[in-house]
């Protein structure tokens, strides 16, 4: 889901758990979107992706995703697909990362695609 413009981060699925992880500044993997390493241009984005691709003993399916800032200043993916990946199934707020996130999300998952 990579796009031409806007800051990007690398997302992937954790090899063992299968859940979504993000490449962090230290070249490791985090489940916190706000700790992901951000690339502001194409060159930096490709460098991050190359770093991720080299780590496929820990993760699966690395890809660049675009992020933006929500109204409350929290980072959030631009594409609705990445929003669902970050949160969990929109029909089951008790499952996925959204179940522990509480107030971190500023819009109900159900409405995510309409805001």
């Amino acid at each position, binding site marked *: 889901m990579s796009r031409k413009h806007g800051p990007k981060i690398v997302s992937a*699925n954790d*090899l*063992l*758990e*299968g*859940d*979504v992880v993000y490449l962090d500044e230290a070249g490791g993997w985090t489940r916190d979107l706000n700790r992901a390493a951000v690339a502001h241009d194409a060159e930096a984005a490709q460098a991050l992706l190359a770093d991720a691709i080299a780590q*496929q*003993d820990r993760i*699966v*399916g690395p890809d660049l995703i675009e992020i933006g800032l929500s109204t409350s200043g929290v980072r959030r993916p*631009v*594409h*609705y*697909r990445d929003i*669902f*990946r970050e949160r*969990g*199934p*929109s*029909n*089951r707020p008790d*499952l*996925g990362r959204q179940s522990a996130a509480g107030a971190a999300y500023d819009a109900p998952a*159900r409405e995510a*695609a*309409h805001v």
Partner: protein
Amino acid sequence: MYRYDEFDQAFVRERVRRFAGQVERRLSGALTEDEFKPLRLQNGLYLQLHAYMLRVAIPYGTLSSRQMRQLATIAERWDKGYGHFTTRQNIQFNWPKLKDVPAILDALADVEMHAIQTSGNCIRNVTTDHFAGAAADEIEDPRPTAEFLRQWSTDHPEFSFLPRKFKIAITGSPNDRAVTKAHDIGLRMLRSEAGETGYEVIVGGGLGRTPVIGEVVRDFLPRADLLAYIEAILRVYNLHGRRDNKYKARIKILVRETGLENFRAEVEAEFERLKASHSAEIDPTELARIEACFAPPAFAEAGDLSTCETRLATDPDFRAWVDTNVTAHRQPGYAIATISLKAVNAAPGDASADQMRVMADLAERFGHDELRISHEQNVVLPHVRRADLPEINDTLALAGLGTANIGQIGDIIACPGMDYCALATARSIPIAQDIAQHFSDPAHARTIGEMKIKISGCINACGHHHVAHIGILGLEKAGRENYQITLGGNHSETMSLGERAGPGFDAHEVVPALERLISTYLELRESEAETFLMAYRRLGAAPFKAALYPEKELQNAV
């Protein structure tokens, strides 16, 4: 039910052992993801948006209570307490951890189940009528044929790397509940005038990005020739099917590009060669062994029907459930009870571990230990006494499984969509829930009558939207979810593909659009007996398009 013999058991255990070794090597770094991915897919393990997903085969949708209880145990022990029954009569677990999958497969093998051939370009789970062996309108039980094909196709070396996946469906009833015309091969059981059992063979059907209604390639195929003929079709497909373009690799494209007559000629020629070589003859002893596994249960006497009759006369909720969820059985005193997994606010096809246990208990106590999964994502108790219906209904109601809506507007097929699926372009489940909520008044649903709404979250059409009376296809448009509506599709023996009504709708516009459609239908129908599909076929698309796009109608009038 079919019981594994020693060979079956050893084969499945060996596959589990092999996969356990493959997982170990992936975790140690000895296998890369590129090397591991085809291996995990051969064992039904996908990677979805939030987690791995394990797709478990339920051969022709038949389960014993023991197997259903094991699915419940797996859901609780290694997943998040529920499973999702699919339009392929399978079950998917949405949250397994990679390291746990070999243990899950072992637990499945304990109850004669597996996840083999639930992915990849091979012959997939053979599907059938969920009322098989019970329906009053059936010519013959299609499950022995399905089991025979399952055994023949399992790990078949010649057909393990086909151009694309291959799906076979079979119905034993002229009323096609198995969607046979939308499969790579569809089989309809027939009886010749001489009383011989055979099949009408349909080929090249399919949904997905290029929906095609299958065509009859052989009017009557004697049972003895079944394997030779199926093998001939597979051989022609394996040889000529396109491998250069994934989207043109299904047999439907080959049949279209070759032309049915030429395709048939090639199949018949190969069939004659195979018959001459005697390599694909059905072994009558083996067929008899399999058929014996599907002998009808030892039906009991009808029993005392007075409680059931009283409840029917005095309890409108029970009456409604019997009217909608209970179907005629061939055995006097018996009925087929369909358990709706479509309660308002439920995700279509989802069942909790507790619900699975309730259904397993009912099958054991009242249903000759049998359960079926329907392609419409419901669960069926195929053999229950009418006398036991009140207690069955009461038990289901306590477990949130008593919804009386089979075949009605709330009985919606929906794929997992973007709430789970990595291929999806939009969500399906919340759309289904919004529609079910809006039309939740049972009296209104009864007034609307038979209605098949089917929702897919991408063009791959797992939600069968092409063959819905009202089909909904979720796509992405300008960074938002957008839903196209198709009208007039039908999944039965009179299959038709829905026609796209016009531009798509935003998610919040779908329910109002459906409300306009339904109101228009109710205004225009000739009588209560005229279903939405019948009205659509009589009136054509125009009045329904006008209802969906009133502004356009206004512009045209000016």
